[in-house]
């Protein structure tokens, strides 16, 4: 370490006033950057809500209708309705299907990675997972629109291939990497002494997993699932392209839906700035912000729970 200054030169008494001041300024900058994360989160909430706020107090708008009405006619000439319930159900149905697929596969793969496979294979699999999570959402959407929709039409005979099933599969593929990597961390966090105690009693790997590790890593695995949910709820481009464009409550897996995120992306370009429609889209954004905030905070508290123990 030739770059380390000698102890004598860095003695405080010998440092010039300018050097001390520069250091103080730099440390202030470091603190400011540290706090910036809070500022940015607050700014996001503030600016999104600021654009949305006027409509909250405008004539003829009711929050109840916004949340629980299924009528979304933002551009109708004489019967304008801003009900997002169908969109919320769209988000929920696609997310639920995605989790139904991604949770078993994600946790299964996490268990395999952490407990069953050899180090070399594990490293390879982790690289694959990292690459999988790096695929941009617009590429996933494109895959849904082209490959997956053709497969679904061929397999089920549905008239259109962009629907709940398509979006669910695409979102599952997108959330699996999150679940695997956080889930594997959770399993790794279980102390080795737990494993040694199990092996000493003659347990097989599988017995060890479901009798010892799963209960011990329960909170971390739950957090992994929650973060997967957060990813799926917030995903925009992929669901915009893969779920079709029908604002209604889906009756089956092969119905097209629209999600909260996709709705903003689809209509923001057409809504004139400052119009009620534009503001309602920002209000939807505020709703999304709050949903993901709750999901992420819950995940964090759940994880913190294990650290305390």
């Amino acid at each position, binding site marked *: 370490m030739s770059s380390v200054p000698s102890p004598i030169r860095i003695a405080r008494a010998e440092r010039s006033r300018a050097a001390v001041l520069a250091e103080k300024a730099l440390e202030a900058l470091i603190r400011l950057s540290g706090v910036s994360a809070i500022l940015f989160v607050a700014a996001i909430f503030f600016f999104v809500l600021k654009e949305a706020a006027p409509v909250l107090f405008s004539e003829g708008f009711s929050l109840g209708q916004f949340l629980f009405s299924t009528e979304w006619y933002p551009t109708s000439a004489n019967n304008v309705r801003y009900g997002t319930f169908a969109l919320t159900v769209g988000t929920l149905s696609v997310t639920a299907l995605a989790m139904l697929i991604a949770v078993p596969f994600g946790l299964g793969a996490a268990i395999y990675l952490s407990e069953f496979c050899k180090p070399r294979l594990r490293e390879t699999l982790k690289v*694959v997972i990292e690459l999988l999570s790096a695929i941009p959402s617009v590429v996933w959407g494109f895959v849904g629109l082209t490959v997956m929709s053709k497969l679904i039409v061929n397999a089920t005979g549905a008239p259109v291939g962009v629907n709940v099933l398509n979006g669910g599969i695409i979102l599952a593929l997108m959330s699996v990497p999150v679940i695997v990597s956080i889930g594997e961390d959770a399993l790794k966090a279980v102390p080795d002494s737990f494993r040694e105690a199990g092996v000493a009693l003659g347990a097989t790997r599988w017995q060890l997993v479901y009798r010892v590790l799963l209960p011990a890593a329960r909170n971390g695995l739950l957090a992994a699932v929650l973060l997967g949910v957060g990813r799926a709820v917030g995903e925009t481009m992929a669901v915009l392209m893969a779920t079709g464009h029908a604002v209604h409550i889906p009756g089956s897996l092969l119905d097209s839906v629209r999600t909260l995120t996709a709705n903003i992306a689809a209509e923001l370009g057409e809504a004139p700035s400052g119009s009620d429609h534009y503001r309602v889209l920002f209000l939807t954004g505020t709703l*999304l912000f709050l949903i993901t905030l709750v999901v992420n905070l819950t995940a964090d508290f759940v994880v913190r729970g294990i650290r305390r123990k």
Partner: protein
Amino acid sequence: MAGRFAKTPHIARKEIAESVARSVFGLMSAAMIVPLVLIVGYLVVLAWPALSLEFLLDVPKRGMTDGGIWPAFVGTLYLVGISLLVSTPIGVLAAIYLNEYAKDNWFNRLVNLAVINLAGVPSIVHALFGLGAFVYAARFGYSILSASLTLAIMTLPVIIASTREALASVPMAFREACWNVGATRWQTVRAVVLPNSISGILTGVILQVSRAAGETAPVMFTGAVFFKAVQRGDLFPYGLGDQCMALSMHLYTLATQVPNVKEALPYATAVVLLGSVLLVNATAIVLRIWLRNRKKW
């Protein structure tokens, strides 16, 4: 061989369960790899007729139904480059604060929560924020500047997380040795912590490039446009206040908005975008493995 060492039914059951579990979990892991390979393979096969250097360097022609992707490609370079200039210093300094300065108190737990939440905010909400804050409130208009700033805030958690990890991997003893010879906290950071973690930080920056390059929604409403006339192969076609094309948005446009596109065109665009992102990520992974192997402690 049913002798003294024959398995008891209990042991036999246990071993069957073990091998079933092993293969089920193994198959689940394999189920993640298969789609990656199939998807990439399928895209490349369909894109093959259009893929060439000419495709990269050429401009879109005949109402975007033919030609290349140069304006979009160079636009993405601009957006990523400028967003990096903004977010890397803030992100690295924030990570230094969190890892080297912050005491474990309620305020810093709040900062941590903010970073976690910033990472979880949906990309479309970032787009709304960029529109409200940069395009309108700051009056930057629909421009490269607005779009880059939006991207910068969006990718900030990536650089914070990876820099923190790099800083945390420097052993505590290194810092203690430095403090013991009378160095201040910042002198320790500059002389000991940063030199020993700079490559890890670099890996984080590379990952940030890939994340920023793939984002669509945040740039779609803040500065990226459907079409912008640019000279073929021109490296500096845009100014900070201009609107630009972006590769990710170009793929969305070709796939959903433009009628009668030449079949291979959107596939080729997808392959270029996916290829660039995976290449950048692979670079980061290789760098990380190389670093881990030459680590001395």
